[in-house]
């Protein structure tokens, strides 16, 4: 919050620190929304850029990350609506590409790591979930990412998406049902 106040006063170094603090989290959320790493990078940069341009409109009624995430989600949803197609999430990005987990080295050095067959099964599960997530509507994808990945509470999600609380909960329930329908074959 203090960094954003300093950035509002023209301290671009403070805004740079905000970028460094939130870029991974924001990029991950955008990536789960759009499914394409390059597009996620562009949208993340655009979100930070717009945050810098609109930094004067920040009133402090929300957390800085919530404010930036709202910008990013709106950009992502607009982009998804503009494309009008279901994203085919690549399997290579299912694990996040540069994820901290799942690397061969870590597996070799981590004695508590599960056995390889379980790791393969888990990786396959992630890929299936990512593929199913990519086939959902943007609104369902957004609530799932915000709730299950970003960990927002219902009120934050309602504020970001501009929805009533009951509607948001109902939409989240239906998004999970849709994801279940997408993964029904895999689950069976």
């Amino acid at each position, binding site marked *: 919050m203090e960094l954003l106040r300093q950035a509002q006063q023209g301290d671009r170094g403070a805004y740079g620190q905000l970028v460094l603090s939130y870029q991974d989290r924001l990029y*991950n959320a955008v990536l789960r929304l759009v499914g394409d790493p390059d597009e996620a990078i562009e949208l993340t940069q655009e979100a930070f850029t717009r945050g810098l341009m609109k930094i004067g409109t920040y009133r402090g009624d929300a957390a800085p990350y919530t404010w930036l995430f709202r910008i990013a989600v709106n950009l992502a949803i607009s982009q998804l609506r503009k494309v009008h197609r279901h994203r085919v999430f690549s399997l290579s990005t299912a694990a996040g590409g540069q994820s901290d987990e799942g690397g061969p080295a870590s597996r070799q050095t981590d004695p508590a790591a599960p056995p390889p067959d379980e790791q393969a099964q888990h990786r396959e599960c992630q890929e299936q979930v990512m593929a199913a997530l990519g086939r959902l509507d943007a609104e369902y994808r957004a609530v799932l990412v915000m709730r299950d990945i970003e960990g927002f509470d219902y009120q934050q999600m309602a504020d970001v998406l501009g929805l009533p609380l009951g509607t948001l909960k109902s939409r989240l329930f239906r998004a999970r049902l849709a994801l279940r329908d997408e993964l029904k074959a895999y*689950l069976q």
Partner: protein
Amino acid sequence: MSQNIEHIEAKLCAYIDELLDENEAALIEKYLAAHPAERQVIEDLKRMRQFVQQLPMAKAPPEICQGLQSYLERSLLLDESRGAQVAGRIVRWPQWLAAAAILLLGIGLAIVVWVVLSPPAQTVVLAPTAAPAEERSREKQEKDVKTAQVEPDALKKELRARKGQAPAADRAEPVVAAKPSPTPPPPHKGDAYAEQMGGPAQWPTLNEGAPAPAPAGNAKTLWIPAGDIAQVRQQVVALLESSGISYSELQDAEGWNERTGKKDVMAFGRTTTSPAQERGVLEADAGKAAEEPARSAVASTAPSPDPATPASIAPTTRPLVDGPVVILARGLDQRQYLAISRALGPSRDGLLRQDEAKERSVADSAGRPAAAPWALPREQHEMSRPTTTMPSDSRLVDSAPQLGGEVATRAARESQRTAGGSGGAGALTDEVKDKLTAFASTLPTTKPDLTEAPATSPAGQATTQVAQGQAVARVDLYIVLQAPPRTVLTSPPAATAPAPASTQP
């Protein structure tokens, strides 16, 4: 129904996220225990939640920071370039300002040119230039009174016409606002007169019912400032009547301006006074004058040597009108026009005073109104016929005093002839004849030769040469009798015209 479903879905969502309190959670578990299918769905949804939560955390690539850094640098450069653009922007307002200034200058120049080149309202002094010193002083006083605003174009045309047609008449011709009108004057032609008189421009249809003007005639205006309009009007009428000139009189009959809807002193109705009616008025006035024995005796025996005395210029007729009077004399040839304009010119008052005593004496003795002092000779009457060429032996007496003397003589002769012919009430007695003979002997007998170059008469009036056979255009003369507008005559004019009575023994 949909709200109920949404409410149930919200409760189930909160149950999956384990955000319900124990009571609500117990109710749902109790329901799910009774319904295994729904319980399986809820279990699947819980697994979906776990699957999404187990998705790996992606790490932001360094391109984001690099791109943002480049954006910040670019934004800095753009800000500077924006400042440069603002500094180098083509500013339009000086151009607009210059255009506005040019426009204003043009308008101002046009106004100045219009003001400078437009002829201002000119003041015409109704006085001849060649006048003796004693006349000059009197005329100088009259200049203050006899001023008129003449329409500039009409004045220019009139001056041009004078130079081209009658050069000798330039100095001697008084007055006059001339308005060339090859066509009959329009109904509101008198606007110029009204403007000259300082009144509103509302004139009636001057030509309604009037005889058609001469085809090639001009309309000229003779403006006569007169203190006593009735007296001057009577004299003018007598002059016209004695000259055989047809006229019509326009006077303030209605006084109602239909255009402005106000009482308008300059609004003229049209009334026509026939010569017979006018003669009756004059005779009645002459009868009234005869009832004053003392005055008549003085007038018949010894006319007042001072024509400026109030007794000598006292009105002999009742005032006929109070306002301005316009007398329209139509179809005047140039000689008649010049004679009338000279007779009614600046020396008019002097003539009146000079000849009034003679006229009065003749009128009293003859029992009829005497001929007007400006009456034209018989030849002029003959020439008033609508001809375009003048007879070769025509002579115009345009010197007012001489004209007055000659007319007085002729009036006496006419009176004698009329009395002898009719033998009626107007027959002259021997005493009157003697008086007339004695009076006529005192009058100047020489007449100026008008066929020669312009000369200056003893009274200061310039004579006019009229070429033989010269084509004369007919003139419609508007004689306007009006009190001097906006000017006050502080002192009565000192009439110093030579009085014929002074030569009388």
